[in-house]
């Protein structure tokens, strides 16, 4: 049943491709504005690259999180999902997994490409790719809790950013830290391990928290 939920959300995303593309374009444009604004100062660009790419990824995921449950809430299908004979955290996990595939994986794939503008070495680009691959599931998972809590509220989009962005800070520090270590020529392994541990912890707790929040939002 979990795979049907994932499949359903992937199909829905495919039918509304424009939403998915707008997230990716937002990411590409935000990241590209920095080299254009700063000019060809290679050393400076290389220093700020990790932070810029990671912050852009955080902001881009804000764009798509509001839709995680809202569309289903408005047409009544979320109620139906709550009334399926399976634990609610599995429903949430399925929807979060679909969100990661639709909204985050494109960013992970395109990040090494936009990273070229910052004069990063090939090795650093790989580390950037790896850190985003490990870190973006955290964005979807923690974001699902925020999305569930703000469901049905007016101005939920701003509120979700205020709730969720502070919780993203550990992922940002270790993710950007890994890339930074690689720029400096030291080993990024420690940062990546911590990022992986953070991803596992959020995978264990977020679906339960989001499920509880959904029940409250739908009462």
């Amino acid at each position, binding site marked *: *049943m979990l795979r*049907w*939920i994932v*499949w*359903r959300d992937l*199909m*829905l995303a495919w*039918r*509304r491709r424009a939403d998915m593309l707008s997230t990716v374009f937002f990411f590409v444009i935000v990241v590209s504005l920095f080299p254009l604004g700063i000019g060809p100062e290679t050393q400076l660009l290389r220093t700020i690259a990790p932070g810029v790419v990671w912050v852009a990824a955080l902001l881009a995921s804000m764009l798509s999180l509001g839709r995680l449950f809202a569309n289903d809430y*408005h*047409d*009544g*299908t979320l*109620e*139906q*999902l*709550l*009334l*399926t*004979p*399976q*634990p609610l955290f599995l429903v949430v996990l399925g929807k979060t997994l679909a969100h990661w595939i639709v909204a985050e994986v494109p960013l992970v794939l395109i990040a090494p490409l936009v990273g070229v503008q910052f004069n990063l070495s090939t090795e650093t680009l790989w580390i950037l790719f790896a850190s985003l691959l490990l870190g973006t599931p955290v964005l979807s998972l923690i974001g699902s809790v925020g999305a569930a809590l703000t469901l049905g509220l007016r101005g939920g989009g701003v509120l979700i950013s205020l709730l969720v962005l502070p919780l993203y800070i550990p992922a940002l520090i270790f993710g950007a830290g890994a890339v930074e270590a690689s720029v400096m020529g030291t080993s990024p392994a420690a940062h990546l391990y911590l990022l992986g541990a953070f991803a596992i912890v959020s995978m264990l707790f977020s679906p339960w928290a989001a499920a509880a929040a959904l029940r409250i939002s*739908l*009462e």
Partner: protein
Amino acid sequence: MSPGTYVQLTGPNGSGKTSLLRILCGLLAPAEGQITWQGANIRSLGEEYVAQLTYLGHRHGIKEEFSPVENLRISNAVNGVSVSKERAEEVLGQMGLAGRESLPARLLSEGQRRRAGLARLLVCNTRLWLLDEVLTSLDKGAVSLVRSLIENHLDGGGIAIVATHQELELSAGRTKRLELTT
């Protein structure tokens, strides 16, 4: 409530028909008292209870991006029931949607979407039906279709609780009426 019971919930707007149905399906926690199913509290039964019921809310539960066939098949697959494409087309034909079963639901009229949502009743094999204002925007033909669906369900030992402003009198005079007041 014994098998074969049909209850029609009536009452003015805001009298709590929808709230009662949401409490009955477990979406809302009752402020006092408890709902029991075969002697056990539905809160402790959890998924076991949910597997026995079909709830149709006053929102259709239809995805606009999907066609009626996809809606029917996916909502059942998520429930763990697989419905073949042919079966889905047949059921939607019975609901009067023949020829429109592959159009995206956003192109359908309000009543047609309602019919697509009601098609779930034909494929589910649950015992308890909780229907909230499902007759809104349906034409006469569809209303009598719903009536015969409910009668078949009751004959099979099912229970139906329907909140409605319209009369939905069953033939055998087995309607129980519960009137809520504000």
